[in-house]
């Protein structure tokens, strides 16, 4: 059951020489070569609130197991961003079109991943966000 994630970073002009980085990771369980075998699938939500919302709720069983999170802001407006936090600690802002792919340890049950459409107003319209979780813990539930 191999699931692979490939990242490519490319630029011809951000530095004096071109940047070209391509890396592929096979998604495996913590500390092993056994493939991750569970996923939430690709989900989509439309955010219309500047208040933090739980996207992925941390699960005690998942503590320090392997989990990978993919999140993308599907807005086509470069000014509309989504703030991503873990346990209320801001990781960063995903502007329109930006994505992220991170490991998630679910260190404790407070380590939920939350998102807020911080730049949302009634006149901006919803901010669509897509996300997927690849994991190994068996009791994972999402309450997005």
């Amino acid at each position, binding site marked *: 059951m191999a699931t692979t994630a490939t990242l490519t970073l490319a630029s011809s002009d951000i530095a004096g020489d071109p940047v070209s980085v391509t890396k592929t990771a096979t998604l495996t369980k913590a500390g092993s070569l056994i493939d991750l075998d569970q996923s939430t699938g690709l989900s989509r939500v439309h955010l219309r609130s500047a208040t933090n919302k739980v996207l992925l709720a941390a699960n005690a069983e998942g503590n320090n197991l392997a989990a990978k999170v*993919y999140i993308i802001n599907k807005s086509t407006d470069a000014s509309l961003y989504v703030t991503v936090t873990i346990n209320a600690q801001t990781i960063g802002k995903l502007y329109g079109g930006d*994505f992220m792919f991170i*490991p998630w340890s679910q260190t404790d049950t407070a380590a939920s991943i939350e998102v807020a459409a911080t730049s949302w107003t009634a006149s901006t319209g919803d901010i669509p966000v897509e996300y997927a979780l690849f994991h190994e813990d068996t009791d994972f539930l999402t309450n997005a």
Partner: protein
Amino acid sequence: MATTIASINITSTDLLSDSLSLSAIATLTGAGSSTGLTGTEGLGRKKLASGHAQYVLFDGGNRTADKAHKIYLKNLSSTAAEYFLITVNGEDMGRLYAGDWAFFPWSAHDQDNDIKIDPSADDMTLEYMLFTDD
């Protein structure tokens, strides 16, 4: 203005009952604009030898706050059990196991918003790159 492209492909033929193929392409731009990021610290490697204590990889105080910095990390270890614990301002993000990579935005919203790495063993090497929006 520079043009930097980040793309991701996540694929599996057997995780689900149907094939999985996710892909996305993003142009790395400044916060709230269509102007391409123009700064980078370049592709680097950090080997953490004995003691393997937590190490500040990127200092929040060195960057302009609330911007659209982007971070790439990869654990170059080939020993499956070896990982880097990634933290943001003291909060655990996750463990980057051997061969894993991560790519994420970094707001550097205040001086405490450091990105730190903590290897699980001696002599582990992390590859990293920071694209800056200062």
